[in-house]
């Protein structure tokens, strides 16, 4: 293990599980505590957001659907995504959100792409989906939806935020904006199988709340035996390694690779994260905001209060060892946010600007010389640079993580 090994991107040689590091990271335990404090506040807002979504969707499934009620539910869905996306940096180190032994909750919450025609009608197939198939599914309840999603790889994705998104917006065949499902889909006597669609929305919003509550419980402070209790108590290099692995994988594999570079390459208009609502740009903005929270050690809650202690942050840990590197990561994170937030001002963005955001599917069209694609490329470059810096952070902290470890999702 100690032979010279010179390769691009390879930054450290020791085995990750037992990194023999000169730096004992004695100042890391408060950072782990603060990370858990910030993440818990984000999950707390996420759970409240999902609960509010269910509340605002209630008129649709309780029989008082109107256009205003549908608009209200849609706004609540968008709002619920804000805190959730900010938790995504915690997705990639086999924690409460993605541990198969804890049910791989993430796959129930945020799975994508969606088997939309397993849920409801789609263009060209009026009778498709569980909602329109009372013969096979005489009742729609939690077990029906859970069972469909129970075995990843075998069945179809019919639960979570994107399922609810589809129930609220419908398919998006509108090049200039999101899908436009009618509220009458929830009015008995107007929309076919409206009663069953109501039930589906009722059940799937409740499942969302229940699944988030499970993750929330694992991060709740002062709860002996939950994940948080063990997370803050592990050896510092393991705990900090998890934080960096999660941040790095969200940055490189998930955001840059999967969510941006892939549709950038295929130019498939709907190969985007929130394709029914065109909420994709907001999703990405809050993913990056989450990275900033994780690095700076603070989070501005939905109600405006700020939690976390920046002096006990990953940033402060890095600053104590390599202040120049720390400054670079801070600037790169802010730059990525700035460059995503600049998308609506891109000259090729069409007249329809949604929620202050240029729809992602409009940005990726055209040629590489078009302003939209150049703006997307700029963000890709930002994210690659962040990932490279995070690998350097790992080295500065004596951890064995390499850029290539961030590539897989």
């Amino acid at each position, binding site marked *: *293990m100690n*032979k010279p*090994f010179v*390769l*691009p*991107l*390879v930054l450290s*040689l020791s*085995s*990750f*599980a037992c990194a023999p590091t000169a730096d004992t990271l004695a100042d890391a335990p408060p950072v782990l505590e603060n990370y858990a404090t910030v993440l818990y506040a984000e999950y707390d807002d996420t759970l409240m957001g999902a609960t509010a979504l269910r509340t605002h969707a209630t008129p649709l499934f309780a029989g008082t659907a109107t256009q205003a009620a549908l608009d209200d539910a849609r706004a609540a869905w968008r709002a619920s995504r804000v805190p959730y996306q900010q938790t995504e940096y915690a997705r990639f180190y*086999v924690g409460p959100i993605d541990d198969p032994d804890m049910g791989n909750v993430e796959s129930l919450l945020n*799975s*994508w*792409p*969606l*088997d*939309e*025609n*397993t849920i409801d009608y*789609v*263009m*060209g*197939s009026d009778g*498709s*989906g569980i909602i329109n*198939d009372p013969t*096979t599914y005489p009742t729609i309840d939690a077990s029906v939806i859970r069972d469909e999603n129970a*075995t*990843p*790889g*075998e*069945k*179809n*994705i019919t639960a979570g935020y994107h399922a609810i998104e589809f129930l609220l917006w419908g*398919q*998006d*065949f509108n090049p200039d904006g999101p899908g436009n499902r009618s509220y009458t889909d929830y009015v008995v006597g107007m929309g076919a199988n409206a009663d069953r669609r109501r039930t589906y929305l009722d059940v799937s919003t409740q499942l969302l709340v229940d699944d988030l509550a499970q993750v929330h419980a694992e991060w709740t402070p002062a709860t002996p035996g939950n994940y948080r209790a063990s997370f803050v108590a592990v050896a510092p290099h393991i705990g900090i390694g998890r934080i960096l692995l999660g941040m790095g994988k969200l940055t*490189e*594999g998930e955001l*840059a*690779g*999967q969510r941006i*570079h*892939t549709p950038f*390459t*295929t130019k*498939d*208009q*709907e*190969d985007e994260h929130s*394709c*029914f609502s065109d909420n994709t740009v907001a999703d990405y903005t809050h993913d990056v905001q989450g990275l900033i929270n994780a690095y700076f050690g603070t989070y501005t809650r939905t109600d405006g209060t700020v939690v976390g202690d920046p002096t006990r942050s990953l940033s402060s840990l890095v600053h104590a060892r390599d202040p120049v590197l720390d400054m670079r990561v801070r600037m790169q994170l802010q730059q990525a946010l700035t460059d995503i937030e600049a998308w609506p001002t891109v000259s090729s963005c069409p007249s329809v600007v949604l929620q202050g955001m240029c729809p992602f599917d409009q940005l990726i069209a055209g040629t590489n010389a078009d302003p939209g694609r150049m703006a997307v490329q700029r963000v890709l470059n930002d994210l690659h640079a962040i990932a490279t810096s995070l690998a350097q952070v790992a080295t500065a902290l004596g951890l*064995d993580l*390499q850029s*290539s*470890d961030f*590539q*897989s*999702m």
Partner: protein
Amino acid sequence: MPAYDPSEEMAGGTLGTTRTTSQDAYTQPMPGLTFEQNGDFAVGNSFDADDWVVAPASTASRDGLGPLYNATSCSSCHSRDGRGQPPAPGDEMLSMLVRLSVPGMDEHGGPLNEPSYGGQFQPHGIPGVDGEGATHLEWVETPGTYADGTAYSLRHASLSFTSLAYGPMQADTMFSMRVASSQYGLGLLEVVSEADILANADPDDADHDGISGRANQVWNQTTGSVTLGRFGWKANQPSLRQQTAGAMLGDIGMSSSVNPDQNCTTVQTECRAAPTGGAPELTDMILDLLVFYGQTLAVPARRDVSDPTVLRGRTLFRDAGCADCHVPSFTTGTSDTAALAHQHIWPYTDLLLHDMGDDLADHRPDYAASGSEWRTPPLWGIGLLRTVNRHEYLLHDGRARGLEEAILWHGGEGEAARDAFRAMSAADRGALVRFLRSL
């Protein structure tokens, strides 16, 4: 016997080896990729990892699942680009499938499909299309002993179908169960020159060492001719492109320019009538990116190469004759991808077919491969299987519960090596396994 060579540590060559030893060890890009190639790798990864969905869907690039299928994504069987396993009792197969054929050959000399179910049993169907049925495995244990008296037990499965949605199968149908193979390092094996592979072939055992080594010769859909087979448990695929397109159709139900038709037999009328996700469903661009991804997954570096027990195991591996088929190293030929070209690699396979005896036989010929011949599987990276996939089920149907059992199943041309292992002391057996775990 050749002394330890420092390059052995870099199993995938200087540009294609990863130092990662975590559960992501099989899913790393080759370090020698260019910036642009890393981007292509990421896109390929996306289509490898994510589910394909039922057509029509808004995500037009990603629809076309089924109508009949085994799994919804590559990664559901090749979890973290690793190896599949037999189902737990009571579960349906997921990362394992059953090949079907009837006596005779197709127009190109390959297996002849079962008329009602095709060449592969697909338990699942999209809404409105019945899956082909359900399977059941009954495991049978057979006791044995090492020369030192230590007892062991080997298991093998007998397959049955608990339901068949499209009527009975033809009475003389032949079955072969296969677990999904790991995906890393394949691009390197693809560019080992044909001459170098054939140099190890000895079809008539002219040197009387008990080991033949035959090349499979299979239909190449790209060239429209018969060429050397390299991939798959019986070396029945000539290229990663054809392998990938075949898996996309057979396992997931995605048509492509290589396989333009849906995978439905004449009696599967709902399957034939189901909506498609385009013609073809999988565009050439995405197919090419998937192939590139499979070509450029890095091989894990060896660990503990200087450990005395590992070095002892290395000697025993060669002395027992394991290396006669699990040929340790090759140098790759040319490639447009620099990370693949002219690399000194250590895959421990000759990519040739060997008769492995009756106990391992599936009795289902596949082109030139007989019912008892199997391709030598590569061993590189095998020591990280438990880390990545949380199991160590080996051999084509996952019957072996660990490396020792896999060795003990060797028969036919592998019998002498197997007997040598069985005759070893417990310490030597342990050293041999330690060596394999260092790969």
